[in-house]
């Protein structure tokens, strides 16, 4: 069901430019951090920045923050399915070492 209010809440060009700049800065930070040796935290930092960028794109460029509940439910569903993919895959990767590998 289309929400008539969706059309009236388009953000200003200025706010889009700000988001674009934020995304470019975040990309620069990702590149810079990749050159530092943070051990396992390199991945954590890179994924955290990527998640923030994803949220900015979804909320502002894709207008999710002005969308109706059904659209938000669809987005939440997508994130839930990503969580299922990661969680059940990790049941393998996180527990693979417990029994060890036969012959090693």
């Amino acid at each position: 069901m289309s929400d008539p209010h969706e059309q009236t809440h388009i953000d200003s060009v200025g706010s889009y430019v700000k988001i674009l700049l934020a995304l470019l800065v975040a990309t620069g930070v990702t590149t810079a951090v990749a050159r530092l040796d943070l051990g396992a935290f390199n991945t954590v930092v890179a994924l955290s920045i990527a998640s923030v960028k994803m949220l900015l794109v979804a909320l502002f460029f894709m207008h999710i923050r002005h969308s109706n509940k059904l659209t938000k439910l669809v987005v939440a569903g997508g994130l839930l399915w990503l969580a299922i993919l990661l969680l059940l895959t990790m049941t393998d990767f996180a527990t693979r070492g417990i029994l060890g590998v036969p012959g090693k």
Partner: protein
Amino acid sequence: MITAAPQEREHYLNASHGLKSWLLTKDHKRIGLLYLATITLFFFIGGAFATLIRVELLTPQGNLVSSETYNKLFTMHAVSMIFFFLIPSIPAVLGNFFLPIMIGARDLAFPRLNLLSWYLLVIGGAFSLFAMIAGGVDTGWTFYTPYSTTYSNSWVIATALGIFIAGFSSILTGLNFIVTVHTMRAPGMTWFRMPLFVWANYATSLIQVLGTPVLAVTIVLLFLERVFHLGIFDPARGGDPVLFQHLFWFYSHPAVYIMVLPSMGVVSEIISTFSRKAIFGYAFVAFSSVAIAVLGFLVWGHHMFVSGQSLYAGMVFSFLSYFVAIPSAIKVFNWTATLYKGSISFQTPMLYAFGFIGLFTVGGLTGLFLAALGMDIHVTDTYFVVAHFHYIMVGGALMGYLGGMHFWWPKITGRMYPEGWAKLSALVIFLGFNLTFFPQFILGYLGMPRRYHVYPAEFQVLNVLSTAGASVLAVGYVIPMIYFIWSLRYGKVASANPWGATGLEWKTSSPPPVHNFEETPVVTHEAYDYASLMAEEVEVG
């Protein structure tokens, strides 16, 4: 005898003429028929590969084709049948045609997107077909790494690109169906008055939209590793080959439900119509479709028990796999309960529905064998698995598709098919199917591995039986092709409602007008309200 065609009335088939009117059509019914032509082509291509496989397996020696060619035959059989026949089959043909009509809509929500979906399937199919003609692909339809990324010298990228493109066709069809069901139901068509075929297609669409993008991502990663040698699946570069299997099966296990859920929807329509009763436990059957769609995403690791996956993950996936049996069983029991005290007639669609229930039950129960960790180790990669999934995908999905084609053929074409021939072919298909695939359960249990064309001599008798069954099955598939085409010209003219069914699709003429209904229908009855219909008939009579 040639019967006069109903030429006076305008309908979607005669409203416009010429190739352009078909290739640029935005009518969901015509697009459904474009899909029908496309997937029928791929069905016969896949069938030709299957024929070569079965002929090769007549003898224990590999004396028809080389090992390399045999690898290509079973890969291209599966790629054709899964991605270009079974996945688009019911949703893109029957769903496209009937979902809008069954909810009282004039078309799908996005008609142009619908046409784009068909073009994407054709383009994807063209890439895969090119790969087949250019030399074929030999990785198996599963494209397991490291073989697909490092060692195979066959047309991996072209085939994978074809599947990638066809995947977007599937996503867009799913999206179109979801939006249509949410926004375009006729007045009075509440969620719980929707036919179960619509519920089944809705649940299928959720899988298409949520699962298929993961397949697309997986194919891109495969491409990046094969072409640019990025370390995603290669352990020497920091990757993990089992990760490919996780990503692949995250889509490809639910993909089995993309194939079989719409068939379940067809069976609900047929069982209700030909037993003149409302489906027993309508809400349970409706929600079981959604439950299968959701639970289907939690079980993929049961394909990987011997892959090197952690035993603990195997235990979780094994445990979760048993849950899918619950909604599947709800459907089977509720269909059976619907038959109880029904006024049953045994027309062709009903024969296919019965075939579906029996064969799907065998396929489903043997799936439980495979979900058990210990049992699965014995039968992994044997013909037991091949038999199991053919009972689901051919015995289930294809039986449902053929049942639906017969059920709705009068509506699609305005002509009846010949009932006697149709019953005969349904019987031939049922017998041929069981003769083909039941021996494979035994072969697998005895230890014959899949994907080998040379086998010990003691397995020959069962293989010969299977090949004989495949010949019978092939005859069973060709007969409907002939009489469906025959009926277009010579079939008896169909009335608007030849089965005396309750759905909205039977309230409009056969074939339907361009915009489906002369005026927007208003729904005042529950789905399958045969009790009221028969009471009205008694009053009128």
